[in-house]
């Protein structure tokens, strides 16, 4: 991944490090120490034993990190998830990739993984949606479907023992991508969600967040614009209508007139993704729209979004948001302590991580270790004191 640099004046540098410090402080407790550098000791409970996972090494009885990243604990298994890594595929992931090679009966696709992925001719939809065996003629006409350097969206079909992966585009929503631009970010910044195709109707922009860190930002393909509006938030209806969507890559999709206004919106979204990627913040439609709106309210041009000043402001805004949640996180920490203390005599380590949006609704609940369902319920179902 190419790192882009942005200029920072000494005062901006100071503001940036202060904001970063606030972000860390807002995470609080054990999460603040979750980030490790190469050679850092990882605090573990030696009495109860632990399992050494990826990215760690035992040196003179101490568990050290061998990569830069975030400590992850699952029961006794302790591993470090590196911050700079290639894409680790999982079956069912939505990915955005670039065709690197047209081979016999298959395409090779760069998906930022350790190997190029394979897209078999039998795993794509033929034009017109005809279901039949692929013939030698189909094989000769493969370049009519996808040719070298084409950007496509696809889904991971299978992973193989030797590390190779197979893709498929057997849904109309997958296929060739057009009328837009590709932005590359670190794969760990994109969470696996129900929905990876987002139509930001208010801007007329389609956003495909590939799990592999490739983000495609384009105009909404015309064929899908008549279909019921798809909100960025996941809901049942969205999932249904998505399957009815006609994918990009159809002939009419190629002739979209991109007005300067639309181009500017695409560009703003792309720069929002770039900024979030450079700052290491999670990339999902909410954060992108938030950054987009922030750039509008501060009245800056799209090109100024990749300046140092906007990066600093983005980090400061994130720090503000996190510290607002901070008091709540604090109570989460107390609860964690209580649970962990109780777990102590049972030789159990328990972590409860809850992320709560500002409106107070639970976004994610992550429990590592055994917790009775009643207490887990209590954490998520509003049993916690409200921050206000």
């Amino acid at each position, binding site marked *: 991944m*190419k790192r882009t640099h942005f*200029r920072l004046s000494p005062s901006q540098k100071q503001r940036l490090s202060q904001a970063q410090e606030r972000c860390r402080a807002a995470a609080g407790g054990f999460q603040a120490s979750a980030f490790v550098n190469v050679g850092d000791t990882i605090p573990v409970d030696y009495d109860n034993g632990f399992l050494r996972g990826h990215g760690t090494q035992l040196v003179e009885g101490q568990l050290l990190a061998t990569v830069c990243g975030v400590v992850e604990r699952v029961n006794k298994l302790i591993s470090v998830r590196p911050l700079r890594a290639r894409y680790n595929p999982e079956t069912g992931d939505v990915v955005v990739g*670039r065709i690197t090679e047209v081979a016999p009966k298959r395409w090779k696709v760069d998906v930022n993984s350790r190997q190029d992925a394979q897209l078999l001719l039998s795993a794509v939809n033929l034009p017109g949606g005809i279901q039949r065996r692929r013939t030698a003629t189909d094989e000769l006409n493969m370049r009519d479907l996808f040719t070298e350097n*084409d950007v496509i969206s696809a889904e991971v079909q299978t992973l193989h023992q030797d590390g190779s992966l197979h893709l498929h585009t057997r849904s109309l929503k997958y296929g*060739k991508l057009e009328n*837009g*631009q590709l932005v590359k970010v670190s794969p760990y910044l994109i969470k696996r969600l129900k929905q990876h195709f987002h139509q930001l109707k208010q801007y007329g922009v389609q956003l495909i967040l590939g799990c592999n860190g490739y983000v495609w930002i384009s105009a909404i393909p015309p064929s899908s614009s008549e279909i019921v509006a798809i909100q960025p938030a996941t809901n049942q209806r969205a999932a249904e209508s998505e399957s009815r969507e006609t994918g990009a890559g159809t002939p009419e999709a190629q002739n979209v007139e991109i007005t300067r206004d639309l*181009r500017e919106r695409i560009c703003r979204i792309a720069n929002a993704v770039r900024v979030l990627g450079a700052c290491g913040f999670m990339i999902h439609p909410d954060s992108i729209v938030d950054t987009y709106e922030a750039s509008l309210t501060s009245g800056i041009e799209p*090109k*100024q979004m990749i300046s140092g000043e906007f990066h600093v402001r983005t980090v400061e805004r994130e720090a503000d948001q996190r510290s607002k949640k901070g008091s709540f996180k604090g109570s989460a920490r107390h609860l964690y302590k209580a649970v962990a203390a109780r777990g102590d005599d049972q030789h159990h380590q328990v972590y409860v991580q809850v992320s709560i949006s500002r409106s107070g609704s639970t976004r994610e609940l992550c429990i590592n270790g055994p917790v009775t369902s009643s207490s887990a319920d209590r954490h998520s179902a509003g049993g916690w004191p409200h921050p206000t």
Partner: protein
Amino acid sequence: MVVGLSAAEKNYIAGGIAVDLRSDGRGRHHFREFSIDTSVVPQANGSARICLGGTDVVASVKAELSTPPSGRPNHGKMEINVECSPTAAPEFEGRGGEELSMDLSRALQRSFLGGASGAGAAIDLASLSIVEGKLCWMLYIDGLVLSSDGNLLDALSIAMKAALSNCGLPKVDIISGTSPEEEPDYELSGNPEEFSRLETSLVPVIVTLTKVGKHYIVDATAEEESQMTAAVSVAVNKKGSVCGLTKRGGTGLDTSVLLDMISVAKRVSQSLLSTVDSEILASETRHNEEL
């Protein structure tokens, strides 16, 4: 550098340039933001690193004592060389990297070294002379490409200008031998406080105009460069005079377009030069504060 783009992306880039809004939000004549850091190579007399978007280059100036070039007894010497490190990017491996470094070196030599008589060089060569006909400074200006995201030539020229501004030549005490007959005897001052700066106000910067479709753009990214039909690099100094001109790419250019490009390059270079100067100054003050 090979960048694979799909037909759709090529269209999108060309369309953006046509409406004066490129993929990263810049207009046709906007430079990316860059930062300059000076004194990055401790062994060199002067050095600078510039990060321009994803492009990252280092330039260093190493001064050595030498004899003046034949026929020009009161001149010093300068040499420019650029290396594209294959460890930096896989595309610099083998022949590709060598050719690219040759191209870059040649373009920089054309813009910085002046004519065969040494006239019009970026640095007044007479200022490098120590003892006429006997002793002079030889400046080795080296550029190293660490990563490339387009517009390497402009970045290298800025880095070299910054490195030359950063360059300090130690004081040379001539003990004896100033007469034409005897060999000069000299002593280099060991005092790090005693050094002289070069006069760098007339060192040019290079502005490359890349023609994509019907229009030409400034500071192209690697993706945009892959779509170019022709590129003209114009070296302009503070006075606004053109010090060098290099054209790359197979397609011919109309004379009127070329003249137009030069005038745009002149306009862009003046604002670029003032940014470069203030960045160099900022970096120098930062260093002085740290010391």
